[in-house]
């Protein structure tokens, strides 16, 4: 996402990322990040929490106005109601194909970490 953000900004359109993993989003060097400590899959908050979602979106958009220099990371003042441990325990994401492959061939995990991605398997 960070790489796309860089391109759009360089094309003359102001950008902000609302990111739950701000260190990752900001790593390629992006102009503005609105950092939020929310769990994956729910950057705006819980389903049907319209008021909460609106507050998050507005706060993220305000960073467009308030950031004064490239590389700004603004942490939004929202706190997730459940502890991270509980969120991890209750997450229902299925194991993606790459996870299934690495379960079968654990040595491939090192390729994933190293970023040496095979072009065709």
């Amino acid at each position, binding site marked *: *996402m960070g790489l*796309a953000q*860089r*391109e*759009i*900004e*360089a*094309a*003359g*359109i*102001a*950008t*902000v*990322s*609302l*990111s*739950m*993993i*701000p*260190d*990752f989003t*900001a*790593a*390629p*060097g*992006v*102009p503005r990040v609105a*950092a939020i400590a929310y769990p*994956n*899959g*729910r*950057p*705006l908050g*819980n389903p049907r929490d*319209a008021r909460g*979602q*609106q507050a998050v*979106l507005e706060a993220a*958009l305000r960073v*467009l*106005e308030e950031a004064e*220099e*490239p*590389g700004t*990371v603004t*942490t939004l003042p929202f706190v997730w109601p459940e502890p*991270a441990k509980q*969120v991890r325990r209750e*997450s229902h*994401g299925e194991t993606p*194909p*790459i*996870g299934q*492959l*690495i379960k079968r061939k654990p040595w491939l995990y090192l390729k994933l*970490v190293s*970023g040496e991605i095979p*072009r*065709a*398997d």
Partner: protein
Amino acid sequence: MTATARSAGFDSLQFLDGATKRVIKAWIEREERRPIPWTPLKKPLGECRIALISSAGVALREGEPFDQEGERRNPWWGDPSFRVIPRSACSEDVRLCHLHIDRSFGESDLDCVLPLARLGELAEEGVIGEAAPSHYSFMGYLLDADEFLRTSVPAIIQRLKEEQVDAVALVPV
């Protein structure tokens, strides 16, 4: 201006499992410092036309889904295409095509990942000028982003310019 290691003040990886955490940490450490592009906002937020971009793999039900079979055949590959989502789209109109996230939240309420309804409300309240006619989504699992950057991103930029978008909010999932 070059990228500096600025932190958000909380553990970015707290909600991730151990294996994913190590992969992402390694990727972050590999990034090189380089100049950061900068385009100042040209007018007050209350006058800006805003577009949203979600990496949740949002596709219209009546349109083509992202290619998940291709990823199942080759788990190192992710579909590098993108979809245009009109401003009027709601949860019933879309599906999420992404094998790396819990899709249940965004599918039961699109605004969890692509907040089109909330953006419309902010326009009515005058916080922003207006929501752009078109918004965008792609599927964020792209270990090799070359084709995405070569084809999808320029096409999105062209459309953003045609629709005279002033600012973009990107929402990774």
